[in-house]
């Protein structure tokens, strides 16, 4: 065991865990967060994603000791009780089915839009491609991203039925 310092969603934590413990288990089991989830443990599905220094990272294959920047999880996206526009777009589009994968979908989309507020359709599809959904909510997820792009740009979003992915 060794002392590890983590900053998660604005709060600092000091933990005593093995340095090679995957970040995912520390977030879930030591810090009681529910956003990042186990889907594959292999960096193939995105269920475990968190944002570290602006990038969407697979926490399932990230040793806790290697984390340098501040971590933001799904729970940390809302500010002062207000949902992030990406999360709001998810509700407006009613994007999830079971919802288990949606942490990965939302975190990946959030990191994309923070870097590139006006992605092309192709950029959206490419960036999201490593984030899987077995309920096949993909079309709505893409619609939700386009809706978020519009709200973030201050324009009023299109009617959900007219949004074409």
């Amino acid at each position: 065991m060794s002392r590890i310092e983590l900053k998660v969603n604005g709060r600092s934590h000091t933990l005593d865990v093995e340095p090679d413990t995957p970040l995912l288990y520390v977030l879930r089991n030591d810090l009681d967060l529910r956003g990042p989830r186990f889907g594959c443990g292999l960096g193939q599905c995105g269920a475990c994603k968190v944002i570290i220094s602006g990038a969407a990272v697979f926490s399932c294959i990230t040793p806790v000791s290697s984390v340098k920047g501040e971590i933001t999880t799904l729970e940390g996206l809302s500010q002062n009780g207000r949902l992030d526009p990406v999360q709001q777009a998810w509700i407006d589009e009613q994007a999830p089915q079971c919802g288990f994968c949606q942490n990965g979908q939302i975190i990946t989309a959030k990191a994309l839009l923070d870097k590139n507020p006006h992605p092309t359709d192709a950029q959206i599809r490419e960036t999201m491609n490593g984030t899987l959904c077995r309920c096949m909510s993909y079309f709505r997820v893409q619609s939700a991203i386009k809706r978020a792009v519009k709200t973030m740009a201050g324009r009023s979003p299109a009617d959900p039925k007219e949004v074409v992915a």
Partner: protein
Amino acid sequence: MSSSDKLPKQIEDVLVTHRREFLKHAGLLAVSFGVFGATAIEGAESQSSNPAESPGPYRDPDFHQIDSWIVIHEDNTATFYVGKTDPGQGTGTCFRQLMSDELDIAFDKTTCIMGSTDITVDQVGSGGSSALERDSWPMRRVAAEARRVLLEMGSDHLGAPVDQLAISDAVIAVKANPSKRVTYGELIAGKKFHVTLTGNNINRVTGQAKTKSNPELKYAGQSIQRDDIPSKVDGSLKWAVDVKLPGMVHARNVKPPFACAKLTGIDESSVKSLPGFIKVLSKGNYVAVVCEREEQAIRAARQLKTTWQKPATAPFPASEDLFNYMRSATPVSDPRLAAGNPELRAPGFGPMVVGNPDAAFSSAAKIIEGEYEIPFQGHTAFAGAHALADPSNGQMTVYTNDMKSYSMRRGIAAFLGMPHDSVRVVWMMGPQGFGRSAAEDAAFEAAWIAREIGRPVRMQWMRDEETAWDTKGPAFLVKMRGALDSGGRLVAYDFHARSCDHNHIGYNEPDSVLIAQLMGTRRAKPAAGSAAMPSDMYAIPNRKMVGEVVGLPILWETPLRTGNLRDPNGPQPTFAAESFIDEVAAAAKADPLEFRMKMVKAGKDDDSAFRRARSIAVLKAAAETYGWDSRPSPKPIGKGKILTGRGIAYSFRGRTVVAEIAEVEVDRQTGHVWAKRLVCAHDCGFVVNPESLRHTIECCTLHGLSRAIHEEVQFDTETVTSRDWFSSPTLRHTDIPERIDIVLVNGDPNPDRPDLPPYGAGEPALKPMLAAIGNAIYDATGVRIRRVPFRNDRVLAALKAAGV
């Protein structure tokens, strides 16, 4: 709606009195009925009490009592308790819509608790697209009866006869003097209804009140936002994976490295000194390790040295030889024996003969033949099976996302030899349930280990376990023959299906669940398995249909276990039948849509669900939405790198009718198929929540696309080699069409029936999609591929072979 900080008294009273003690300890008295009330255990561990003191017994709530279904609170809100689970299609919201309507209470003043065996009645859980079609009816009748009883109470209270009263949003008022009013909460909060319902099973349970007619429904029919979505988006939902209990430990399985392997040794010293190590458990060929922390259990399971002996004969052929094997295998029993002797009823069906197919074939102008192959396809849940089992106080409480909590309770009680009322199952949300995930395996395993070590145990399957060892949808081999007369009409049809489905695994069976198999349990007779016939309304005068079931050489302790996968026997025969109809249309040089339409219209009689009329309606709606132009397939093959084409397929499931059109682009250099556009015209009767329904249909359609272009279980002669998302590909963001049209046709062709009922919608849209894609590929390329999935290499090889 507002939160209530304790379990309603009525519910407690319906349950056994001394369970109160347990409820307190498990934190159930602090149930949060917040935004999303799907599970009763929300906040359980945050009470940090000691569940070891929880007593039981856990009796079933009596479905004959209104109090088991509906509780009205002091603040004039209501909680509904239903025995269903919602794996993500929004059915929980639909139940609230319907029950709010029948009870006459504002939708946003209600919440709904689902699927926990000790506080909700046994409606099985979910499955079979039955949520609204069957299971919403008892809910509606009970809510209508509660309204009737409240109205009578209101009449007494206000001193006015019932017919002079009106109800609006749970307030009863005198029509002539609306200031004379009383709320439901004032009448009954804190008290019980004490009304016994009639009906000898839960699907027949009823009171005296009539349910409302469709035009009287206010919330049903509206696109109310799903109540589970906000907490899934902000990270606040507590899933089954999030439950934590004091003293809980983590378990991981050590699966046999090949099918039917015999465990010959465990070297515990290989893990003993690992940090957090607690125990290796083993019985028969079942092996698991338990550690204090999750990552420790994962490491110990990987590091544990075990030795295994291979079976004497190969358990199955390799995946590339599967269809040859199925072709030459002997069916489980001869279907011809079925006639006249029910004892010999064969798995499969038939032969079913209409008209005189032999004569029609011998006088045919043209005979068309085709053989279609559909491999095993996995449930392959997004995340591995998991459960938490708590053995405190000699009881067993299981937290699971399994769709069928009630049979899980019975199964685990039988498996552990515990009394039924010592076991309870708490259903919580989890990765999607499309028929039969491995969630139940994990729950049985967690429960067994928990009892062995006397601590709460969390079991989680890893990715490779889930992909390799979950249950599979059966492979099908379908031979078809059709006879055209000189006028280009299909006058005879021969459908011969063979499924590889012997020892089909049921739900939560203590003698077929994987841990039981690995521990050596064998039932005397493996489950028969089944094949199925196509579903259509084509008037083909002469037909012969046969279904047979074959089994793999070894049926037990194998990762090639078959079980129900979303529309269990639907997509396979439909891929064959609807591809074949397309082949026949092409042979007759007819437009494939018109060819189908003609055959549906040629039928004189409709059935009780009006499926003929509704088939015509959905075919028309799909064609109009797409902008279908009449011409035979294939279209003249283009010169460029990308070939485009369109295909149609149609079928029904139960009383729901679906027609789908796919437009594809085929890359002739890579064999890559992209479905650029999809149209799904869908008729599932009365629609409770149009937007939620559209979303479910859209995702179901895409699930069909995934099975058409990606999904196939691969294996060598020892084990399943599909083990992760690369070896078991699934649909991804880049596969998604640029346009999807979902058309809710949902009209009622019966003018004499004011109340169109809802039919199932969780599965039907998947069924025709495989054929729609195959037909579109044919239209684009002129090449008929009779084998799914249409993976790049397979398509490219077919194009090359045809010189395209």
